[in-house]
């Protein structure tokens, strides 16, 4: 990623999963960006990137939502999302949809080409422009590389860079960090036993590592893992990285909330 100057105004794309069922991922992301001095817009028209339709084999509704997403976000200097998976859809899924004769168009392809490079997963943004954010949290955590963020977006380092900046935090690398947790969108409901068995393998390794939290950048994975953990799977507290970092922000400011938002911000 080329690190130009930090965008001053960004749109937050929460993802439908965080918007509907994981509010702290969305509000946490907003707080973190604001702590950097970024003006954060939360476009009210946002909903879903369309991945669930795309991966279920329904291209037309996927394209409807992709166009809506582009209408909502294309005008911004940058778009930031606490969902690595949704960002990978914008980067990888949208160009493929746009190239599909039945539902795409060259106009759509151009809009995707213009917007995708400015669309960041939250930790990518923080890794690039958030070096001076004061973060502190005494915790031992493990990282779950969500498959789409890792393999489709090709992002492994940014979350580790950001977590590495949190004072007092220890990142324990799980041996199965890169294994799929079994969420897989509608896969989770089509093959629940299989999905849960995969989740248990992931949670089992985390439970054995004696973590305070299993952290990830994807609401989908976390809803699945958390739901499984609470319903008889290995017991592991799971948390979205935006919520964890938001807590780290509070902790660094002191319990009374009067600490510094930012230490010196460098001129990038």
């Amino acid at each position, binding site marked *: 990623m080329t690190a130009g100057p930090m965008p001053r105004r960004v749109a*937050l794309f929460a993802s439908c999963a965080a918007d509907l069922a994981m509010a702290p991922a969305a509000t946490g992301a907003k707080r973190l960006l604001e702590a950097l001095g970024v003006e954060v817009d939360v476009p009210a028209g946002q909903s879903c990137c369309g991945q669930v339709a795309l991966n279920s084999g*329904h291209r037309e509704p996927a394209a409807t939502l992709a166009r809506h997403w582009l209408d909502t976000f294309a005008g911004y200097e940058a778009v930031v999302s606490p969902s690595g998976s949704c960002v990978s859809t914008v980067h990888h899924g949208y160009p493929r949809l746009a190239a599909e004769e039945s539902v795409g168009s060259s106009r759509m392809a151009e809009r995707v080409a213009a917007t995708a490079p400015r669309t960041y997963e939250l930790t990518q943004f923080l890794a690039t422009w958030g070096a001076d954010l004061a973060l502190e949290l005494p915790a031992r955590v493990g990282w779950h590389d969500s*498959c789409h963020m890792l*393999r489709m977006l090709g992002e492994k380092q940014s979350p580790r860079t950001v977590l590495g900046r949190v004072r007092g935090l220890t990142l324990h690398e799980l041996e199965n960090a890169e294994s799929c947790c079994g969420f897989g969108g509608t896969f989770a409901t089509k093959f629940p*036993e299989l*999905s849960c068995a995969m989740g248990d393998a992931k949670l089992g390794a985390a439970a054995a590592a004696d973590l305070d939290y299993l952290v990830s950048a994807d609401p989908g994975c976390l809803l699945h893992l958390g739901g499984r953990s*609470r319903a008889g799977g290995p017991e592991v507290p799971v948390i979205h990285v935006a919520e964890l970092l938001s807590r780290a922000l509070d902790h660094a400011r002191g319990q009374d909330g009067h600490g510094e938002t930012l230490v010196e911000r460098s001129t990038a």
Partner: protein
Amino acid sequence: MSPRSSALAGAERVGTDRERPEYASTHIPPHRRPLPLMVADAVHRPETETTRARLSLRTREWDIGRWPGARAEQRERAAYLRRRTLADLEGNLARLTENIEANGGVVHRAKDAAEALAAIERIVTRRQAQLAVKSKSMVSEEIHLNDHLTGLGVEVVETDLGEYIVQIADERPAHIVAPAVHLSRTDVGRRFSAIAGRDLGDDPDDLAAFAREQLREDFRNADVGISGVNFAVAETGTLALVTNEGNADMVTSQPPVHIAVMTLEKVVQEFADLETLLPILSKAGANQEITVYQTLVNGPRREGETDGPEELHVVILDGGRSDIVGTRYEEALACIRCGACQTACPVFGAVGGGHAYGNVYGGPIGAVITPLLSDRPEDRDLPYLSSLCGACGDACPVKIPLPDMLVDLRADYQEETASPATRAAWRAWARTWASRAGFAATIAGARASAVLPERVLRRLPMAGGWARGRSMPSTKDAGQMRRRRRDGGRR
């Protein structure tokens, strides 16, 4: 008159040794159970977790999916070579045929399984064959060759150790290059002990030695040797086979007749292509720099040679592949059948190997090619048996975009099967969520439903399979980020 197989003597005692699931049988029924039911069964079988752990350890230890330095270049080269051959598939096949025939072999082109079986039947009937030894061949699984030959009164013995282990219990291979990956050495010990009629223990060396001893006589006595083909070189007519046990050497050189069975995409353009493709197949399939044996077959025995078959027949099966050429799935024909995508696939592991895919090819490559090749309509939903994690794409040594293909095949499936009601529902959902008011209503609904107790939520239709094994997420804070907005947004 040939004696009966020594290796299979006593195999009937293995049959009841282990309760194998019906979907693992070599006999693939004309219809199968719905995929989710078969998968749920497979997940809960006691041996599944061991298989999953075995494959997952292998993936880590072999560093599957990583292509450091020179390996990345080799992979690029392999990907290029396979596509170069496919770009002129018919031209390469014509040259291959010409050169095999120049070497003294006979080529049989077969449009489908029936034609391939008929060609093989003619040869074994003419030779009055009673015993055939076989080295590994997935194509022969695809055309159900063993069944057909057995029906003709020919005994067929699998000589690849893994294939032999699954054959004696009437199972399909569970993995392309590791047919018995779903079995522990204890399982193998039990099977071999049943054959031997005495306890053989579970030491791998002892068990391999037993198999070798069992097979030795069959190599000597077989009327026909049947092999697969890893690569067939158009330039020279060479058939390249790789094994770690040397059984392909035996199968292709000892019996008086050698029948090699291949599908048409196994052709490679130049002999020099093997320099890249053999090592990358070895690495991806077995984590070896090179397999223990590379067998290069350049025709039947020539005058003055001391061994080799009198006849060499090469059966080249199309089996629906030429229909894939020129489509968006053409690259699937670049596959070199290394099985790396299966080893790396977390779903493949969690269902205990390839059997639960219900057909010959399991795992990601199976979920891609089976819907394209199979006549069974039930197989069309196999692309859904994937979490789309992408590990297969990273593992593939010839860079087949398997995850994208799985997504596209799902679209094909919906195109063909989705009811008007299903389509309308998806469209209505997309239109609702593509409008600000529509999504606001969804948020309001989510918040309102959050007051319902979990036992009620679990019964709502949208809970679907989620509630089987997972507690429901809380939606009480739905839309929270929208509340304290400082400006109205630009749209």
